[in-house]
């Protein structure tokens, strides 16, 4: 085991692909996906842009939906790790969570009423103030360690897992609940449409004819645990965080740097921290939003750095879940390594000659014990996790 490897003792995930991590994996291997026009809100756009809503899920009225999704995923992750609130008592437990919508002061009805000169009831603002994701976990589970809500746009989830792992490495915590959460919202939906990067049909990451992304929502939590703590509890790790790399393009507020240099640095940093050569990488769970720009940069960079390494985007199954994406995809990466196979990259049909690479078209067996999961964010952040199976490096 490499020196910096941080055990993952439990995982939880909820998104459009399933209400639990196993349910998500099952539906992805069956090739099921159900992008539809939004049902939870309406807009006046002439076109319906499909989204990936989490079905049959309502959170308590006093919390934002983002916080409720997060609590659900955290509950699954802790149970998976054989822990509960009582089991955490006396331990130094931190919460490191990524989000975008879940932290925004943007309740539309409140803001509209305020603008119209009315004095709306304060409950929507109280709800936002109560719902800071990391604080919600700390309160719900009585956590006394460091608590951090990361708002790095689309790389927040990946950053949260990488930074949460560093708290274990630094000896700050016995355990860290690391992950991400985000809900679908009208303003975000309108925002991406205004940027002209939303697809009018189901998304098709890395496809030659891709038109844009579909938004999604969900949450995932990974229980990161100090090796001594895991030994005390006599449990085994499901997987490890082997390395984490992050960098900035320093190029443009919304477009990725066309040369992929920032992503290359982040991949290099994660692999170096993990002590991994390209030949040891089973696959890459790419960011793969299905926008022309992202997929071009990412595809070309993967073709250049990791030729022949299979890759996929799971956003064809989940939509782009923003702050949750990096965490959901880290969970999928672990589960794929455990199963020794990755799902087909949903939505992909025709290779784009511009990329020099194409994702897997079918469910594909993978042999090596480590994989990468990466995210590229608005603002130019690139974040990469190297994840490895069980007790093997």
């Amino acid at each position, binding site marked *: 085991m490499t020196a910096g490897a941080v055990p993952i003792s439990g995982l939880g995930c909820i998104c459009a692909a399933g209400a639990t991590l196993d349910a998500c994996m099952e539906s992805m291997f069956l090739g099921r996906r159900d992008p539809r026009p939004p049902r939870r809100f309406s807009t006046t756009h*002439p076109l319906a842009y499909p989204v990936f809503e989490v079905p049959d899920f309502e959170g308590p009225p006093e919390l934002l939906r983002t916080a409720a999704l997060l609590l659900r995923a955290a509950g699954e992750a802790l149970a998976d790790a054989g822990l509960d609130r009582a089991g955490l008592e006396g331990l130094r437990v931190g919460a490191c969570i990524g989000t975008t919508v879940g932290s925004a002061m943007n309740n539309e009805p409140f803001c509209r009423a305020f603008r119209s000169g009315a004095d709306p009831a304060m409950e929507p603002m109280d709800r936002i103030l109560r719902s800071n994701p990391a604080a919600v976990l700390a309160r719900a589970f009585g956590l006394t360690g460091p608590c951090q809500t990361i708002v790095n746009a689309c790389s927040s989830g990946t950053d949260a897992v990488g930074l949460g792992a560093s708290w274990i490495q630094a000896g700050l915590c016995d355990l860290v609940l690391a992950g991400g959460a985000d809900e679908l919202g009208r303003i975000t939906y309108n925002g991406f449409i*205004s*940027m*002209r990067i939303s697809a009018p049909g189901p998304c098709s990451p890395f496809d030659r004819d891709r038109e844009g992304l579909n938004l999604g929502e969900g949450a995932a939590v990974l229980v990161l645990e100090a090796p001594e703590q895991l030994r005390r509890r006599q449990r085994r790790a499901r997987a490890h965080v082997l390395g984490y790399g992050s960098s900035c393009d320093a190029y*443009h*507020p*919304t*477009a990725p740097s066309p040369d992929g240099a920032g992503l290359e640095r982040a991949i290099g940093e994660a692999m170096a921290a993990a002590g991994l050569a390209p030949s040891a990488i089973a696959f890459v769970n790419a960011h793969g939003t299905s926008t022309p720009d992202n997929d071009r940069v990412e595809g070309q960079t993967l073709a250049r750095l990791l030729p022949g390494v299979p890759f996929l985007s799971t956003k064809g199954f989940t939509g782009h879940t923003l702050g949750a994406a990096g965490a959901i995809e880290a969970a999928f990466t672990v589960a794929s390594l455990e199963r020794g196979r990755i799902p087909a990259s949903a939505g992909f049909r025709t290779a784009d000659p511009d990329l020099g690479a194409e994702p897997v078209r079918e469910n594909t067996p993978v042999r090596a014990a480590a994989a990468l999961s990466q995210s590229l964010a608005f603002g130019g952040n690139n974040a990469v996790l190297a994840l490895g199976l069980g007790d093997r490096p």
Partner: protein
Amino acid sequence: MDLKEKLKTILVTELNLEDVKPGDIVDGDPLFVEGLGLDSLDAVELVMLLQKHFGIELKSMDEGRPAFASINALAAFIEARQQA
């Protein structure tokens, strides 16, 4: 105010081109990269402004590309759409 003057005013106010006066913008000069130096984020804002000020809906960015070459191109595009 004629259409080209209106377009220049919209660009200056809505894109916050503080150091530029509408009268400074040359009708035939490039709007993007060179000339005014607008970028991809300004381009999508401009698509929205066409909707907001002229009720014109663009189906794709490709449709708008030739229109965004200059003030002349933009004015011609709008006039053609409004007559259609």
